[in-house]
């Protein structure tokens, strides 16, 4: 048995728990999940059927844990797993799945297919069977602190520009602050207006906040590639930074998978509960708005629609907050046909956008979002995830669509009521 196969099987075995047993005992291969997956609907390739992507884990369960498998294995009739049972699935789970979780919403017998696919990714990652792009991003995250290779010097330069543009001091390493804000690499490199917006909004609302020079990066390539050990290592950095500054809350930025990594999976990755709360920026802004601490003025008249980032809405539970905020600043907000918990992914989640090999497939998958946006007649698409925004910008550019992409935090900042001097 090859080392890769051995490692992969070891991880797969460690992943078989009561959930996996109930899921695979229940699945009748109805194929309904295919209709929920944009990689299938946009390519019509049956290999992208979500439950098919779980086959390495399912085969192991079938061979070693099912009643029939135990009997056939005992008499030497089962077909043992080979390395190709792992390598043949690499493209399916890394390129052809954005971990959007829509399949888990539609399965009639309740299989959390997306969760099972993550387990397969975990096995592949540990076996060293992962796409080069993601491996590189993960390595940079571990070595440099950011999947895009952004150093603290670059962050400080961005902060300096933000301070010049806003005329506000951006607090750094303030011990005992109520909130410690994190950033995603995209927000540092592509959308620095997010940092400026935070400064304006928190100054307006009188929020005690800080950035940390030890923990500024929110993204988690470990989660994207499926390596729980690295995911935990990256979460530990945030935890150490937050605990060092003794903050009460950590703000997850406009980034979907970062929210999953920090809010929901982080404590499980590191094996302990946090000493602080994790809030998504949408939750915090909605809370401040509801409490009257954020006062906005003026309404956007252009036709706006909202793209639900899967990890924040369907897998994160933040559904009403962005809509409350949009309603407060827009008079022409329209929903896409399938929105909220049943939204369609942009096509670049789950590490797909960091995987250069998946570029063409990602753009094909974007056709679903394209048709959704076009159906609304919207002039601008607002979202709350910088990765979704970047992927959609690329899709819009490729398809020559006349649509603007906007971040909700910066829109709120642009509508802040002037404070009386």
């Amino acid at each position: 048995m090859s080392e890769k196969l051995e490692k992969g099987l070891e991880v797969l075995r460690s992943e078989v728990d009561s959930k996996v047993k109930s899921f695979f005992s229940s699945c009748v291969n109805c194929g309904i999940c295919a209709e929920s997956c944009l990689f299938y609907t946009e390519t019509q390739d049956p290999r992208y059927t979500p439950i098919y992507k779980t086959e390495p884990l399912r085969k192991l369960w079938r061979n070693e844990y099912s009643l029939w498998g135990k009997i056939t294995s005992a008499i030497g009739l089962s077909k043992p797993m080979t390395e190709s049972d792992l390598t043949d699935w690499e493209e399916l789970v890394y390129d052809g799945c954005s971990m959007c979780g829509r399949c888990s919403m539609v399965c009639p017998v309740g299989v959390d297919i997306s969760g099972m696919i993550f387990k397969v990714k975990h096995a592949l990652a540990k076996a060293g069977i992962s796409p080069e792009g993601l491996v590189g991003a993960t390595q940079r995250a571990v070595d440099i602190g950011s999947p895009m290779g952004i150093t603290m010097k670059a962050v400080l330069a961005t902060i300096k520009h933000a301070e010049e543009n806003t005329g506000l001091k951006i607090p750094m390493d303030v011990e005992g602050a109520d909130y410690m804000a994190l950033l995603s690499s995209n927000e540092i490199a592509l959308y620095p207006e997010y940092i400026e917006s935070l400064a304006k909004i928190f100054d307006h609302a009188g929020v005690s906040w800080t950035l940390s020079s030890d923990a500024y990066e929110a993204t988690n390539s470990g989660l994207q590639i499926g390596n729980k050990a690295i995911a935990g290592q990256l979460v530990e950095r945030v935890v150490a930074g937050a605990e060092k500054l003794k903050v009460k809350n950590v703000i997850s930025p406009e980034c979907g998978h970062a929210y999953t990594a920090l809010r929901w999976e982080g404590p499980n990755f590191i094996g302990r509960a946090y000493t602080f709360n994790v809030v998504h920026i949408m939750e915090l802004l909605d809370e401040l708005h509801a409490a009257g601490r954020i006062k906005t003025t003026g309404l956007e008249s252009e036709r706006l629609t909202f793209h639900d980032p899967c990890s924040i809405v369907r897998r994160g539970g933040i559904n009403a907050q962005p809509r409350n905020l949009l309603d407060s600043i827009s008079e022409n907000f329209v929903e896409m046909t399938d929105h909220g918990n049943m939204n369609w992914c942009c096509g670049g989640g789950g590490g797909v956008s960091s995987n250069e090999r998946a570029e063409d497939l990602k753009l094909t998958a974007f056709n679903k979002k394209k048709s959704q946006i076009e159906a609304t007649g919207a002039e601008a698409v607002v979202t709350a995830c910088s990765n979704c925004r970047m992927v959609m910008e690329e899709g819009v550019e490729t398809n020559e669509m006349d649509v603007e992409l906007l971040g909700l935090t910066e829109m709120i900042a642009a509508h802040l009521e002037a404070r009386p001097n």
Partner: protein
Amino acid sequence: MIEYLIDGPLWYFSLAVFVIGVVWQLVSIVFASRKQDLSVARDSATSGAIRTIFTRFVPHKEISSQITIQVVAGYLFHLGLFALLFFAAPHVVFLEQNLLGFGWTPMPHWAFIVSAQAAFLGLIFLWLRRMVNPVSRLISTLDDHVAAILTFVVMLTGCFALLEGSTGLRLLHRFSVELWLIYFPFSALMHTFTFIPSRAFTGAWFGRRGIDA
């Protein structure tokens, strides 16, 4: 001899395999390891579990138009089969005399015919789809086909047994049921029971995140 074997030892053997196998499977699921989720729950996992056990009976409206025929066929088959299983007159008598000691009003003959037609229509459609649809063809296993064929044979021999009233056809039906019972715990037929913990686990996962799944 064959009659004795089918009505006697084979019946008890198949029943034992069914009961022990199903219990073993369910126990192995319930008592398997399960990691504690250390994140702070936003809402109740229990409420989510209970909600999802029931809400998954109806597909989300966002996907229902793409799967309408499958869902209708699925309901025709399952409802028809359950009606036949628990309300066909010979089954009510059999359950009363051999297992439960009490009975209930069986369905009239016309309802039997309707139930049988619904069950056959649903099963045949879903089985054909398994072989024709590219997605279903790719993901279906030998087990899926064996389960479908066995269930079909049980239903078919059941209809023959009822309509003809001959001992041979009754024995054929009973023998097919015994094979079905023996096969049940080893197969996808287990979803009859395991869909409940499966939905509950996923519902709990979504529930603690405050998501209505």
